[in-house]
């Protein structure tokens, strides 16, 4: 069959002079497979990015019918906008604290689950239960924790029993406590992802390495620093860089739990952009803030990858990893 086909192909090729129709179609068909998705994404996202950048140079809000060109006005205004600077600070604190704690809590559970358990079923069962918070949306997690944070809620009870306070504490209403409370909820919802990913990384480390190190007299701590950490590092770099970006653009918990309050102490940049765009109807200004956020994020990601990723992780194979 194959031989026959190629024979026919050469005949066709002779007729066409060079490349066969078949071969041409073959080369094209790959593009046909990817075309629907890629064209759709290019259109939607390309439009979005160009539109946002363009809009950031225009004055355009709910009332105006025709956007008027204002040049860099919005960008200049951004520089002296106190609110956006405080939002940037909130976002930075939120991101750094959340990502570091995701890593710690998720990593700790992963290490525990990676130990040798007397019953694998028990281990897998606990792993399954620990993943459950990840299934919650941030909105749903916000509700669950809203009840715990309630002035008559369980957390207040513990705070009283442990003698930390004697009255009811408004966890979400106090300037010093609101942001930490949001971070706690964020960790609760996100750590399972880290746990699963790190556990996957840990389990792919060959046990012979540890045995060899043991024979050579390496202490548990040494084994952790010299074997475990270097070998799970690619996973850590991948998930933290993904996480930094998602957390930096966080909106959901702020919207559902505090609406940016009290006194803007939980107003993240993403929430601020949403506020200016959709609450105040100031689309042009919101777009300018979006562009700045995007630029900051791209910069931060590049810097992070430069600092923590090794060359081969950056420019190495892009097709593996699944």
């Amino acid at each position: 069959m194959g031989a026959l086909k190629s024979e026919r192909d050469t005949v066709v090729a002779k007729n066409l002079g060079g490349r066969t129709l078949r071969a041409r179609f073959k080369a094209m068909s790959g593009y046909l497979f990817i075309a629907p998705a890629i064209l759709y994404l290019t259109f939607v996202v390309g439009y979005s990015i160009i539109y946002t950048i363009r809009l950031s140079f225009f004055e355009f809000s709910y009332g105006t019918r025709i956007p008027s060109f204002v040049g860099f006005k919005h960008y200049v205004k951004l520089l002296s906008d106190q609110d956006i600077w405080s939002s940037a600070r909130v976002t930075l604190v939120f991101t750094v604290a959340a990502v570091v704690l995701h890593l710690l809590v998720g990593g700790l559970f992963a290490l525990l689950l990676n130990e040798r358990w007397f019953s694998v079923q028990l281990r897998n069962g606990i792993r399954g239960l620990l993943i459950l918070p990840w299934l919650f949306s941030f909105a749903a997690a916000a509700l669950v924790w809203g009840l715990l944070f309630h002035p008559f809620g369980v957390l207040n009870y513990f705070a009283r029993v442990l003698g930390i306070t004697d009255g009811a504490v408004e966890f979400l209403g106090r300037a010093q406590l609101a942001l930490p409370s949001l971070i706690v909820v964020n960790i609760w919802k996100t750590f399972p992802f880290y746990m699963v990913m790190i556990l996957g990384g840990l389990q792919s480390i060959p046990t012979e390495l540890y045995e060899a190190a043991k024979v050579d007299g390496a202490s548990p701590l040494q084994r952790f620093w010299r074997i475990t950490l270097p070998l799970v590092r690619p996973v850590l770099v991948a998930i933290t860089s993904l996480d930094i970006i998602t957390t930096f653009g966080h909106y959901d918990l702020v919207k559902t739990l505090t609406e940016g309050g009290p006194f803007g102490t939980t107003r993240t940049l993403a929430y601020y952009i949403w506020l200016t765009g959709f609450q105040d109807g100031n689309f042009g200004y919101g777009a300018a803030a979006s562009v700045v956020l995007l630029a900051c994020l791209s910069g931060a990601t590049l810097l992070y990858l430069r600092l923590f990723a090794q060359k081969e992780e950056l420019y190495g194979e892009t097709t593996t990893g699944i």
Partner: protein
Amino acid sequence: MKLRQVFSSKVGRQVLLILVTGIGAAVVLFPIIWMVFASIRPVQETLASPPKWIPHEITTRFYRELLIEGKSRRYLLNGYIVSIGTTAVSLGLGSLAGYGFSRYRIKGGAMMLTALIGLRMLPGVVIIIPFFKLVQMFHLFNTYTGLILAMAARTLPMTIWLLKGYTDSIPRALEEAAMTEGATRIGAFYRVVLPLVAPGLLATGVMAFIGAWNALLLPIVLTSGEKVAPLTVGIALFFGQFGREWGQIMALNTLGVLPLMFVFIFLQRYVVKGMTSGAVK
């Protein structure tokens, strides 16, 4: 026995391991248990001080109000329609694209794949204004189609990556054999590749479904009222409006998480697979 000895003995280690993990798990699971409890008992009991750790009086009132009297039923239905729609669109386009990237030499393919990672990381808030505009332009504001198409644009990059990976793991020889038997490319794709990639489709589909089911920002911006708004929007609004009706809120919340829990319990292997293969690169 000294602490050190306990730590190094086999049994001691196991006990310690279970103790530490157990305490951690209890802390993590407590909010979920508390949510379910709050949905089946009167509010006075939920907010009793000192807390009542076990429900005394059980009531199904809140579930009845939601399901039978129909409060918020619409949000649940919308959630299903939008999430299933989004999953279908992203799997449909994603499996084709994944196959294309996996099997063909495509000019600029590596660049496109890298760009997809960038897209996946694009914060939602940056694109909501143009998405809002786009959806209005095509007269799709507050429609299922508009919301599904917008959400699919968010889930597609990951879907393509995952499905490319799964397709990579299927030997080419099988389709080539089918094609020498006379099947067309598309035929081989449908009859040979898709069935083999089914576990991958399942894992990817679950990820897309969870993503769509949990999305908040896009639905808030692209819908109004309860015509097509999914559950997350319902929850967010509900919380703002009736901040005190904990029983109802928690019943709604439990109903919202339940489908994912079911999916998770039955497909845990695939969910974990989707999680681990989704994040790397």
